[in-house]
């Protein structure tokens, strides 16, 4: 192996700035997409379990559609195809006047994609709640929405915190796909530093270390959250 080490390149002002700005975009894309994903994922996941054929079919279709198309293709469709397919005025606005088009598109694409994965977790969580509980609710004369509001959702949301941890980590990793539509997030910046300086080893190591730190931090947060939300003495099906 023939390689000139030069770790100090990472501290040169220009490249350090690139790394910091890339880190910022990664966090911004991931957290914004996560907010969209949680809201839509919860709605779609609940929708799959309700006793209404139309709603549950639509929600199932959503999950299958977004899960079975690679995120990269979805990213391109949102970025290149959707502005051509919507009414002309809106398309023109999306192409010319929308602020930060790469960022907005990446957040929407990543958010809706992650929502389909969260929806699966939410559905699984609701189905894990023993059927006797909602039957008991029914026997008490609760309406369907009351059963969801007071029995199914409080239990299932607390049950699915552990599986959501890995989704939360995944959203940071998947935010790197934003580079394909030109957003200079962390991975893109490290690649750019590698190209400018020929110090690929140092540049990619820096990015790797930052991603590992993000993963560790996110895991710690989620472990605390898990402790806080665990239902004492509750043993679900997966126990």
């Amino acid at each position, binding site marked *: 192996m023939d390689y000139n080490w030069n770790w100090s390149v990472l501290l040169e002002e220009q490249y350090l700035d690139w790394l910091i700005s890339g880190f910022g975009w990664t966090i911004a894309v991931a957290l914004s997409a996560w907010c969209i994903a949680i809201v839509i994922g919860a709605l779609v996941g609940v929708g799959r379990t309700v006793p209404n054929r139309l709603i549950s079919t639509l929600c199932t279709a959503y999950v299958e559609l977004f*899960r*079975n198309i690679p995120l990269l293709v979805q990213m391109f469709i949102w970025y*290149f195809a959707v502005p051509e397919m919507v009414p002309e005025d809106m398309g023109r606005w999306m192409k010319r006047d929308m602020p930060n088009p790469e960022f907005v598109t990446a957040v929407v694409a990543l958010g809706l994609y992650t929502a389909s994965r969260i929806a699966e977790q939410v559905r699984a969580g609701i189905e894990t709640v023993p059927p006797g509980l909602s039957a008991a609710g029914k026997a008490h004369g609760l309406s369907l929405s009351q059963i969801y509001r007071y029995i199914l959702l409080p239990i299932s949301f607390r049950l699915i915190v552990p599986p959501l941890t890995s989704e939360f*980590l995944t959203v940071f990793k998947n935010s790197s796909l934003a580079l394909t539509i030109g957003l200079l997030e962390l991975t893109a910046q490290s690649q750019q530093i590698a190209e400018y300086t020929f110090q690929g080893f140092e540049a990619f190591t820096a990015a790797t270390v930052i*991603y590992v730190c993000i993963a560790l931090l996110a895991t710690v947060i989620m472990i605390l959250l898990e402790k806080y939300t665990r239902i004492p003495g509750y043993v679900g099906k997966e126990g």
Partner: protein
Amino acid sequence: MADFDFNVVWSSLPFLWEGLQLSLWLTFLSIIGGIVLGTLLALARLSGIAPLALLAATYVNLLRSVPLILVIFWFFFLVPLVIGRPIGSFYSALIAFVMFEAAYYSEIMRAGIQSVRKGQVHAGQSTGLGYWQIQRYIVLPQAFRNMIPILVTQGIILFQDTSLVFVVSLRDFMTASSIVARTEGRLVEMYLFAAVVYFIICFSGSMLVRSLKNRMAT
């Protein structure tokens, strides 16, 4: 929708088919390599030899906390440096995918190995089989069998992941679609077509998983 022209798909089919073959071939080889390396990593983690288990666990957790694109960049940079000469982007990509997916397959195989009851291992020991014989004839066949649905699901994810070779311009189905899209100026048609093709393949795959699960449950 009036000015969309889907003829572009028809006229570029041979080119796209070549790309799709590369995607499928890359997926197939990465699944094989990923399962083999992943199984070795899982065995290392469960071996009871502390340094070996720690090393395997570190590898798995490291690879699982970085994005695949970064791993692809890493290997496109490292492989020629280590080997001393460029070996072509297909093999660099293949190495990156095997190394990356092995981390995920090892977690699946670890769960699979742990799903085999201890009594089976003890039975092997009492009939005088050695460690590798027990793994080869008793534990791994059952672990594979129990994990088939999840292994296939991971294969579908891997197939979707291969689209990311776009970032290094390796001409898979995604890159081929994008080349046609740009040269013909037909972005909408080509990306929608790519979405349909990926959807059909991946949806069929998840149907297969469902029927496998049902068959195994009975």
